[in-house]
């Protein structure tokens, strides 16, 4: 009966969310916070590392530029009152880069351009500026030459475009970005793993609550994480209170039934004993009505309780593997004395294997009601057949040799408190077929009422 499994899962899902006000998912919230944090961290990391790398690269360029400027300045001499400068080759070659950066220089004597490119003079040692359409880094060094009469201040500015530097920076940025993305991906994966393990604990608890049968109100004993202990504690508390109040109401029902049914039994026994002795037809009729009334009330009370039980259990079946043949054999054995009283033969044809994944108590109740009905309406010296069939699907049919169902009423008979118009003097509550129908429906089956070719009634529980 694996077909019913998705149904059960669906039912669990329905139970979980039905009648519950849902706010945002805990799991999504956790995952959002964790991945959001990871994203912010990755971005900060990217900018900090890139900034630091840019600073270090700039420092390298600045060192070379100032070395170059210093070596040019080194070659400056004062000869005959004139500043002479022998431009060393190394001063420029040290500035060559892979990216063929352009190099500019300017030599000033007391602030006046002596040689080189104009517009590079700057007061501070290092500065970036836009020159000739490109960003350049300028380093300036100066020195005072002491001549015969006046000292001369010579300053040298060396500038270099930053193509190689930005290339390096781009490479570093790419690497840092890849690293940051990797960090983000890893953190996200970790956060999902962390949330699902955390939520997994909750889910396990939920499953074990949902899997419980309707009768199981025992406390949870499996270990739970510390944070969930208060929740499980209150759940256990609630269940023990529920268990207690259920037990109390069960005891109450038992006590009430005992208090009501025992005196009824006494009255009935006396009525029956008197009935055996009384000859007067009027008195006999009175006693007969009395016994009828007692039987009717006791039967109605039983049926109402059964119907309530079926309605309660149908919502939450306590399924197990049920051998319908065994169940029917027990039932037939139990009903045979009643059948014998009226010389009715109760014949069970249960040869086909009939296993069903269902609630044995409900199934027993439904079948007992069908047998009860058949016994009530079967004429004396007749036969009631109980047959298990597996083709086309698993079904049990109970047929008698009575008057059968009235065709016009057949569709309404299984409704609550509806009794056939020809039920005559039979005692009944009109709940028997309703119970059978509800039990069949709870097991995904149905109750079919037909008349046999010979006119008797046939009730079929089809699964």
């Amino acid at each position: 009966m694996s077909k019913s499994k998705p149904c059960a899962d669906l039912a669990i899902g329905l139970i979980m969310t039905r009648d519950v006000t849902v706010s945002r998912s805990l799991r999504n919230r956790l995952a959002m916070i964790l991945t959001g944090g990871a994203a912010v961290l990755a971005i900060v990391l990217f900018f900090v590392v890139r900034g630091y790398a840019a600073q270090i690269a700039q420092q390298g360029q600045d060192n070379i530029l100032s070395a170059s400027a210093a070596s040019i300045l080194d070659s400056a001499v004062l000869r005959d009152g004139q500043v002479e400068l022998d431009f060393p080759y190394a001063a420029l070659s040290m500035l060559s880069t892979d990216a063929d950066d352009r190099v500019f220089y300017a030599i000033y004597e007391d602030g006046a351009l002596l040689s080189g490119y104009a517009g590079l003079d700057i007061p501070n040692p290092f500065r970036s500026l836009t020159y000739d359409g490109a960003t350049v880094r300028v380093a300036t060094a100066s020195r005072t030459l002491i001549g015969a009469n006046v000292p001369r201040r010579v300053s040298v500015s060396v500038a270099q475009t930053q193509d190689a530097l930005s290339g390096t920076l781009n490479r570093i940025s790419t690497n840092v970005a890849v690293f940051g993305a990797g960090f983000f991906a890893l953190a996200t994966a970790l956060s999902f793993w962390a949330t699902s393990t955390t939520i997994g604990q909750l889910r396990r608890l939920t499953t074990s609550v949902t899997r419980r049968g309707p009768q199981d109100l025992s406390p949870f004993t499996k270990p739970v994480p510390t944070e969930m202990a208060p929740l499980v504690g209150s759940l256990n508390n609630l269940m023990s209170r529920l268990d207690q109040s259920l037990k109390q109401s069960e005891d109450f029902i038992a006590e009430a039934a005992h208090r009501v049914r025992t005196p009824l039994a006494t009255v009935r026994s006396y009525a029956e004993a008197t009935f055996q002795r009384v000859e007067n037809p009027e008195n006999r009729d009175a006693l007969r009505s009395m016994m009828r009334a007692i039987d009717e009330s006791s039967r109605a009370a039983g049926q109402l309780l059964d119907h309530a039980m079926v309605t309660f259990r149908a919502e939450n079946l306590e399924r197990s593997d049920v051998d319908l043949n065994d169940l029917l054999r027990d039932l037939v054995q139990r009903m045979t004395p009643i059948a014998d009283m009226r010389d009715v033969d109760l014949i069970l044809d249960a040869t086909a294997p009939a296993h069903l994944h269902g609630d044995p108590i409900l199934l027993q109740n439904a079948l007992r009601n069908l047998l009860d009905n058949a016994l009530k309406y079967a004429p004396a010296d007749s036969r009631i057949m109980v047959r298990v069939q597996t083709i086309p699907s698993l079904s049990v049919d109970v047929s008698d040799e009575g008057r059968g169902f009235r065709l016009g009423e057949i569709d309404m008979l299984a409704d609550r408190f509806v009794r056939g118009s020809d039920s005559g003097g039979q005692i009944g509550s009109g709940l028997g077929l309703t119970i059978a129908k509800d039990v069949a429906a709870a097991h995904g089956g149905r109750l079919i009422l037909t008349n046999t070719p010979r006119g008797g009634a046939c009730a079929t529980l089809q699964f």
Partner: protein
Amino acid sequence: MKYLLVEDNIELARAICSRMSLDGHLVDHAALISEAVDYANAGEYDLILLDIMLPDGDGRSFLKQHRAGKNNTPVIVLTARSQVSDRISMLDLGADDYVTKPFDHAELQARCRAVLRRNAGSAQSSIQMGNVEFDPVGGHLTVKGNVINLRNRELRLLEVLMNARGQVFSKHKLVDRLFSYDDDVSENAVEVYIGRLRKHLDGSDVQIKTLRGLGYRLDHDA
């Protein structure tokens, strides 16, 4: 048959006892579990009728103790609870059957008979009359070595007649004993069963005499 009835409601117990003895059975009555234990230990009973809610305890504990003591006397539980789960737990505890209060005496009798039949073998109690042997538990009649299986109403009719040999039963009395108060039968229905029994007893020295205007009587041609 010898029955032990454990029931604290004296009125009900009295009614059951009087009805049982009408059917020709001996009944001892215990109103408490402690009394029931004493009775059960002292005498051999064919069947125990056990109420569940008793002043000095739960009938189920008596049942458990009774079964634990390897006592095989069958037990029929008289219960006020009609719910299926209760009935099932009763049978699980070792009861042979149960009857829900209030009950029809005919049903109680039928259940007793069924339980006794299932447990037969220990106590065979055939009634001998002339060359006829009647086994009310097994439900058969042996006439000159031929075994005849009786239908339930034939069996009950014969039982009624055999338990009070020589007594005259009116049709009307027999209807009351044979049919439920709710069965819609005429007194002529009795004639059908008398006819069937006569056929079964054919050739024996036991016969059912018709006393015009009075009823029937079982006679033994000595």
